[in-house]
């Protein structure tokens, strides 16, 4: 059913202190596609997506079991800096740095040692183009990123993530802070990006998952409040003939 997988969670379990937030997740993220993760609040969507690039490492009492493989290699046996290069992330609220548009996009390449001006400029242009923002900012690369609208900021953040040439882009509710027009733009952009990248997106908005994604994962907490993966499959199947009763009830709005 799945073509080629980029990332793979194997019996992945995550604890915050004594609390088991994720319970033995098994999941494969197919390449060059959009995978949506849906589920009620607190079911561990963010915890899961933040595990893929080890952003959860920042949390003091976090502990994991099982494995996550990126490119068939355990994430904990890779260098975290390299991993995060490969697996980029876009956050819920647009968070461009208070620098110029150019410097925002050049941030990543510079960190990773690109100094050459013309190469930087090329990377910046390419990334902003890929993020479907070039036409809007081409003449204002020196303006502060904060002067952009919310939707533009979010696309800038995507451009920033693209600039380090990731394979996967994780997005945690990338449009939930945006108005409907900007949301639509982001959704269209995701559709374009999947030609070159693999996208994993968490969303509260079922319609959004339905609209944009190729695959959908549905998560739910069990009685101990740990997050479980209930169903994973093609989005069109999940939304027309889900296998699990709970998936059906959730997507038809019969509970949280």
């Amino acid at each position, binding site marked *: 059913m799945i073509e080629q997988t980029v990332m793979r969670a194997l019996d992945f379990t995550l604890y915050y202190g004594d609390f088991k937030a994720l319970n033995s997740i098994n999941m494969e993220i197919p390449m060059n596609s959009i995978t949506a993760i849906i589920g009620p609040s607190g079911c561990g969507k963010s915890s899961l997506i933040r595990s893929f*690039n080890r*952003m959860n490492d*920042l949390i003091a009492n976090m502990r994991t079991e099982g494995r996550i493989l990126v490119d068939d290699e355990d994430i904990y046996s890779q260098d*975290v*800096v*390299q*991993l*995060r*290069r490969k697996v*980029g*992330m876009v*956050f819920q*609220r647009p*968070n*461009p*740095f*208070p*620098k110029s548009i150019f410097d925002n996009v050049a*941030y*990543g390449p510079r*960190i*990773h040692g690109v100094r050459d001006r013309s190469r930087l400029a090329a990377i910046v242009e390419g990334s902003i183009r890929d993020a479907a923002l070039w036409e809007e900012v081409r003449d204002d690369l020196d303006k502060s990123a904060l002067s952009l609208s919310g939707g533009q900021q979010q696309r800038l*953040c995507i451009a*920033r*993530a693209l600039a*380090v040439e990731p394979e996967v882009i994780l997005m945690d509710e990338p449009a939930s802070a945006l108005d409907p027009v900007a949301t639509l733009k982001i959704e269209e952009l995701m559709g374009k990006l999947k030609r070159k990248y693999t996208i994993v997106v968490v969303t509260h908005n079922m319609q959004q998952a339905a609209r944009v994604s190729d695959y959908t994962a549905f998560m739910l907490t069990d009685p101990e409040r740990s997050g479980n993966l209930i169903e994973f499959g093609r989005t069109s199947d999940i939304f027309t003939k889900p296998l699990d009763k709970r998936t059906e009830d959730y997507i038809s709005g019969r509970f949280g």
Partner: protein
Amino acid sequence: MEGRKAGVQKRKRQFDTAMKYSLLFAALASILIVLMIGIFTFREALPAFRHIGIGKMLTEPVWRPGQEQFGILAMIAGSGLVTLGSVILGVPLALGCAIFLSEIAHPRIRALVKPCIELLAGIPSVVYGLFGMVVIVPMVRHIEVPGNTGFGLLSASIVLAVMILPTITSVSEHAIRSVPKEFREGSLAMGATRWETIQKVVLPTARSGIVSAVVLGLGRALGETIAMIMVIGNSVIVPAAANSNPLTIFLSRARTLTGNIAVEINYATGLHQNALFATGVILFVLIMIVNSSARYLMSRGGFKVQR
């Protein structure tokens, strides 16, 4: 029934209006005070400006009230040098501390240290002065330089540095902490280390807040009175180096603008008193300039800072 209700409504409305005007009056009290301060200090200072001349006051180094010589250059130099000294000593420490508390420290350490720093800010200046007199001055006295009594700019700078430390620390810590967490995550997610994140994203973002914290500390240093009187020696001389090492200038005794006023006002009369008020006006203007630049920086950075 309806009539009674209407009556209640009407009374309520009248009360509402009455309250509004009483509150307006309260709000105007502060401008009234400012006006009065302006009028009274300036009225008292005016004869000094007229008889001595503002230029002369600012450039004359000699202050001998008995001989009607009212130059305050020495005091300006004293205030300036002691402030400079305190900034040099205090700012690096304060900033290091602020960065540590907001970015590096474990929350538990932070919870312990933060109240301590607040406490440091609350300790009366007279206590610092006293501490300076009994601890720091004797220590400074050990430096072998001719004429060194321990009282002087160095002791004063050290005391003042400690005094402005909490202000700068807490204001800049606030500025650093108000850098949204998203910026940090954004940077880390691109493969930057924590220090790179602090250096390249957090500090630049908090820059205007930090700068204004420093300026705020500067203002506080300039306005400090009692502690300065207690450790600076209060001699009306333009500080000068005692030997070939220019740094020994900090061992010189001096007097600050504020100290000048406080020490002499209670017994001054006539033109002497006017001159002291004039000193006050000049000090006031100086501090207004510093403070408004701090405010400008803060408003530009978009950070709200308490106190």
